[in-house]
C-alpha cells in the first residue's frame, strides 16, 4: 500500500508510523515526493525513529548505518540522498529508547532539514528570473494562462479543431511554464523551511 503524506515535524512522523504499525502496516520504503510504501504485517506496537541526514558518499551512509546497527537499531529505509532515515529497535534494549540522547542533537535534525530546503529555494530563484525573461522575450504572461498557447487563433477555434490544436501544443506549454512550476516548488520549500526552523527553535528550548 502506498500513502502520500508530508511531515516537517519528525515526531509527528514517528507517531504516524507507529499508528500504521498498530493497524498492521509496516514501512518498507520512503521515496521522493513523500510516498510511503507499506506492507501488511501483524498489528504491533513499534518505536519508529526518524533522523534527517544526506550523505556525500555511499561509504558515509554505510558508516552511519553500521553505528546504528551496532547499538541495537535496524535501518528500515533511507538512501544517500533521501534525507529521511528510518529506524526500528533491533533488540528489547532499544524498545523504548531514542536515537538521540540529548536535546541539542535531537533538534539538529531540523537544522539539517531546513538547510537542505533552503537549497531548493536558492535554486528556484535564478529559474524564476529566467522564466520572467523568457516570458518578456516570447510575449506570454505567467499570470494569464491564455497567453501560454502561441498557436495563432487557437481560442477562436471550436470542437475537435480546438482540442487537436490544444493537445498538440500542450507539451510545449508545459515546457514553457516549467519555470513557473519550479517557482511554486521554491515557494513550497520556503514555507516548509520556515516551519522546520520554528520546530528547530522550539525543540532546542524544550524543558
Amino acid at each position, binding site marked *: 500500500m502506498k500513502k502520500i503524506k508530508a511531515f516537517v515535524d519528525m515526531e509527528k512522523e514517528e507517531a504516524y508510523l507507529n499508528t500504521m504499525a498498530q493497524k498492521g502496516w509496516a514501512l518498507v520504503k520512503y521515496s521522493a515526493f513523500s510516498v510511503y510504501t507499506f506492507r501488511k504485517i501483524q498489528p504491533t506496537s513499534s518505536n519508529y525513529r526518524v533522523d534527517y541526514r544526506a550523505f556525500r558518499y555511499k561509504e558515509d551512509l554505510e558508516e552511519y548505518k*553500521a553505528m*546504528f546497527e551496532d547499538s541495537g537499531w535496524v535501518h528500515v529505509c533511507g538512501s544517500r540522498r533521501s534525507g529521511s532515515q528510518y529506524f526500528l529497535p533491533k533488540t528489547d534494549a532499544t524498545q523504548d529508547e531514542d*536515537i538521540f*540522547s540529548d536535546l541539542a*542533537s535531537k533538534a539538529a535534525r531540523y537544522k539539517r532539514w531546513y538547510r537542505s530546503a533552503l537549497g531548493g529555494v536558492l535554486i528556484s530563484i535564478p529559474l524564476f528570473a529566467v522564466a520572467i525573461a523568457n516570458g518578456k522575450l516570447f510575449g506570454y504572461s505567467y499570470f494569464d494562462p491564455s497567453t501560454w498557447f502561441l498557436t495563432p487563433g487557437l481560442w477562436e477555434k471550436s470542437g475537435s479543431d480546438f482540442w487537436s490544436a490544444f493537445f498538440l501544443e500542450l507539451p510545449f506549454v508545459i515546457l514553457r511554464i516549467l519555470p513557473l512550476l519550479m517557482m511554486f516548488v521554491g515557494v513550497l520549500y520556503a514555507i516548509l523551511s520556515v516551519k522546520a526552523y520554528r520546530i528547530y527553535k522550539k525543540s532546542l528550548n524544550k524543558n
Partner: protein
Amino acid sequence: MNLNKLLPLSETTFYIMLSLREPLHGYAIMQNVEALSNGKVRIAAGTLYGAIENLTKQMMIKEVEVENQDKRRRVYALTSYGKKLLASEIERLKHLIAISSDLL
C-alpha cells in the same frame, strides 16, 4: 586556533574525547563512555554520529588507519588540537574542584 572558545565541553563531548586518547570506532566509543561513567552516560547513535561530525570539522579528532580495519567502521582518534583542548578542559575542571574543596 582559539581553543578556549570551545570550552566548557558538554559532558557527552568530554567523554567522547576522553575515549579517543586511543583510536576507537563509533560503537566502541559508546561502550567505553558507558563503562567510564559507570553506566550513567549512554550516548545514542544519532547523537554520537553528530558529535563525531562536529569534532572532525573542528579538527579535534580525525579518522585514523588501523590494521584489519572493517570498512564500515571508521576509527577515530584525538588530533594534537584535540589533546590540547582536552588538557585545558581538565585544568579548568581541576581548578573548579580545587576552589570548591577550599571553600566548602
